[in-house]
Each structure stands twice: as C-alpha cells, then as structure tokens.
C-alpha cells in the first residue's frame, strides 16, 4: 500500500505528487511506482515526469489536460500501485581512488578521523540507489552511503571537480557528469561517462537502478578513459527484474 500522497500545484502546467518529506527507500519506491504506472497509462496531455527523492513532478499541457482531471485520474491509479520492487538494473562502475583522482580524501580523512583505506573500503563496498538526477545534466544523486562517511558540505565551494568525480557530502553520494564548482568532497573518480550526448545510451543509469563500484588502478583508469572517450560504456549492467 502506498502512503496517501499530497497533490500540490506547481503552476497551471505541472503537478507535484508528494509522498513524504525525507530521503527514504520506502518513499522513493512510491515515487517510482507512480512514475511507472503513469508511463504505462500513457495519459493524454502528460508531457513529462520527473521523479525525485520524495515526489513525482508531472508536467502536462494545460490545453489538453486540466489539473483537476489529472488529480481524479491519479487518485484512481493510486489504489492499483504496487511499490514493492526490485531495482531494474545493477551497474558495476569502475572507480579509481588513487592519486591524482583522490583529490579531497586527505581532507575527508582528517575531518572524519578515519584512515584513508577505510574511507575507500566503505565507499567502494556500499550498494547505492539512483534517487534522482539534478544540478546539471547527468549528475547522479545516490543514496546508500555508509553513515560513517557523513560529512557536511563545504561552506565555500571548491574549484570544479572533473567529470566522473565521485563526490560525497551531507550523507549522500553522487557521480559528477561535468566539471562544476561544488561544495562536495571528491574522493575518487570513474572513467565512465555517465552522460554522453554523442552515445546511443545518453544516460548510463535509470532512476531506481542500483550502483556498485569496482576498484581499479590509475593505469586501468587511463585505458578506460580512452575507451569511454571513443563512445564505449565501460560499465557493466546486470538486469535484476528478469531474474
């Protein structure tokens, strides 16, 4: 059963269906279930949906669909939703924690009072869920960071972290798709391009997918970077929903 959502207007052309106010797998499951059901139902007038941690934003064409009609239809759809789910896909993503890709790890080690090796083990050993994209095209926000790695955001953003940076802050993890100044800490880097508009698969992971990191050394990083630049995915995807 789904928790009863709130329907909140975002102007005349979008509606927010909010399942909670926190970051939790249970809430995100509801968001994804509604998203899947909506895509399946193929509602006339719905143009695009954006799943986030705790809500689904539904963009629609007000000429073809009025908000109240949409809400009535959603309320009916709600009863049929089954939020229990397995992630559709698990991605094995190579990650390098060696110098120079470990830029901020010393800072993180000093702040958390943890040895460097333990930070790497914790980050690399966890299983993550893709909660949403945001900030810039292809930036993947992950949940599932071990609580030992909780570190507050920087008060002042650092200089741009390179594409593929594995960033942590605020109890969350993310994979950067492009170089942007950030308040997060870069502790490693993947050669995988999580976003490449030239590739048939523009975005690597779907929202709700699972991600784990496989450690590689600097030499492998360089080789895979070249392959990724040439258009290869360089990450292994495993379908879980067909098992």
């Amino acid at each position, binding site marked *: 059963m789904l928790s009863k959502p709130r329907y909140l207007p975002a*102007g*005349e052309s979008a509606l927010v269906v909010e399942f909670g106010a926190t970051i939790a797998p249970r809430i995100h499951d509801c968001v994804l279930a509604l998203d899947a059901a909506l895509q399946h139902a193929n509602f006339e007038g719905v*143009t*695009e949906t954006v799943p986030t941690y705790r809500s689904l934003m539904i963009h629609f064409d007000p000429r073809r669909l009025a*908000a109240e009609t949409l809400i009535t239809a959603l309320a009916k759809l709600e009863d049929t939703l089954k939020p229990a789910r397995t992630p559709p896909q698990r991605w094995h993503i190579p990650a390098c924690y060696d110098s120079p890709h470990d830029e901020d790890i010393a800072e993180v080690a000093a702040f958390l009072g943890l040895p460097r090796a333990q930070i790497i083990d914790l980050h690399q050993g966890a299983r993550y869920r893709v909660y949403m*994209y945001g900030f*810039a095209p292809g930036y993947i926000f992950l949940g599932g960071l071990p609580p030992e790695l909780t570190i507050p955001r920087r008060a002042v953003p650092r200089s741009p972290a390179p594409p593929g940076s594995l960033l942590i802050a605020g109890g969350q993890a993310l994979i950067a798709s492009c170089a942007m100044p950030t308040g997060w800490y870069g502790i490693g880097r993947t050669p995988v391009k999580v976003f490449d508009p030239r590739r048939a698969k*523009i975005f690597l992971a779907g929202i709700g997918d699972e991600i784990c990191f496989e450690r590689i050394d600097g030499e492998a990083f360089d080789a895979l970077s070249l392959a990724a630049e040439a258009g290869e995915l360089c990450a292994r995807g495993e379908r879980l929903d067909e098992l």
Partner: protein
Amino acid sequence: MRGCLRVLRAGPGATVQDSGRFGFLRYGVTPAGPMDWTAFRTANFALGNDDRAAAIEVTTGGLEVVCEGAPLWVTFAGGAFVGQRSGMVLPKAARIRLEPGETLMARAGEFGAFTYLAVAGGFDTLVVMGSRSTHLRSGMGGIEGRMLKANDVLPTVVPVEEQSGASFEAMIDAPWLDRDPDPFRVVLGPQDDYFTPETLREFFAGVFTLTPMGDRMAYRLKGPDIAHARGYDIVSDGVALGAIQIPGDKQPLVLMADRQPTGGYPKLGHVARADIGRLAQMRPGEACCFREVSVAEARAALLACEDEIATTVQRLRPLRLALTSERLFEANLIGGVVDPLANEQNEGEF
C-alpha cells in the same frame, strides 16, 4: 538555394533558441528555450512556422546580421526593439524579405529585454537531444553551445522558393506584446506552507525590483523580506517554469528558461505562464508586484493568451501602409484619414 544569415555584430547573450529541450528533465537536463515564449511564438507564427522553429534570441546588447546566398523571409518581435534594414527604421515588430547583401540590425528600444529574430522554416543548427536550444551552462545546442559572435553563419532549413508562409512585408500588430503594468499572476504552491499567511499577504502586497543579478536561469528580485516559517532547506523536488524560490536571503528568485529541473529551496508559488513573457521582458531596476490566482484562472489565462497569439497572421498589416499611417500620426496630421485597417484583405495569406 538556401540563404543564410551571417552575424556582423552580436551583443552579449544572443543565442539560438527553439521551444526547448524536453524529454530529459528527469536526467537533469535544463529545457532552455525562449525567455519570452509569447514573443518567440509571435515571430514564428508571422512566418507560418510552428512554434518549434529555431530563432535567435536577441538581448539588449543588440544584433546585426547580413543576408547571404539567397533572399530570406525574416521576422522580429518582442519588447520595443529598434529594427533597421540596411539603415531604414522598421516598426518594433515586422516581417520583411531580406535580399542578399541587406543587413538587419536590432537594438534595445523603449522597453523590453529580448526580441526574437525568426526566419521562414527556422534556423538549421545542430540538433542536440531533440532540440536546437542553446544552454550556455552545459555548452549544449545552438552554435557550439555558446553565445553568437561576429562571423557566425546561421543556415536555414527551407530554401526561399519553399518559404510559402510569407507573401508580403508586414508590420506585426501584436498588442499582447505591449507593455502592461498589471501585477504578475501567481498560483500558490507547492511549498506555500513554508510561509505564514501573513508573510504571503506581505508578498502579494509588496513591490519588487528586478536586480541586475538575473540571467536566463533565474531573475532575482529585491523587495520586502519573505521569511520562512520553518527553515529553507527542503529535500530537492521538481522545478517548473516560473517557480518562485525563496532561498536563505529571503528574496525571491523566479526560475526562468534555463532552470534546473530539480531544486532544493521552498517554492512559494509559480508565476502564471501567461505572464512569464512579460516578466522576462523586465529590465533591471524595473518594479513589479504579484497577484494570487487559482490554477483554473492561470489555465484560462494561458489558453486565452495562446488563442490570441494564434491570430498573429490575421493581424499582419502591409508594411508600407502601416508605416505611412504611423508617420502621419507622428507628424500630428490628424488621425483617421489613413486607416491602417482598411486594407484588411491580405493577399491570400496561406
């Protein structure tokens, strides 16, 4: 043969925009698209284009282009920019046929921040993820994902002999693009419950000034403090066009064409889409205020606005006549002698 426009001079911020990059919002991709969709659509409709054709968004920095290769039917509309064809002043919104070698210049006029230079069939720049819209921050779309500069060449999609949408030079009579001091309509939500009813009253009673800090992503306003009743950190959720975010400094930030699809500040409400174009046309230092409407009212306003813009073609006035009458009025020679509406029967438009 296909004509093209070569940029002779481009003020900062001139970009190629179509109706926007949609379908990838869930992957964090900014939609971009025109700041003033009403002016963009008017310029395209006056050429018989649909509203997805790519046009040039010109800022108050102005733009000058030259036609090359073959004649081109072009329009410009939005704000009150001064347009000149090879030095000859044109009305603030017009449709003309540029011959090879002729130049078109647009510079900021009495009001407005953006005008749109459209061409029959649209400009043919690289399509990235389904759109030609330029998003500067991610370097996507348009010409190399950047602002236009001198010597850029903008090819067109349709050769002149197929530019059947236009048959005579015209003034574009689009009163919906006129300056209008009415408050911007706002639909409350989704986080209006982060503010007390009294704070919301203060917001709707307040006068706000546009600061120079704004860009295509967001307009920053300065006015009375809008205090949060319970903090300003929310778990990120979706963001739609016109969202009024209230960050920690308690001053509203209205999210515009280059908004991110998700965001983490409480959103008090959304500016009605019917008023977004008017808001986009504000210049720094100009003042505005807001008025609360229901979702149904905002929807009705949008549909009425779209219906009005759909009449663009029927409202075109042959250019020479329109200019003559304007000059007569300007010279204070009595109104009503020459009626620009008298020649309503346009020569077989479409």
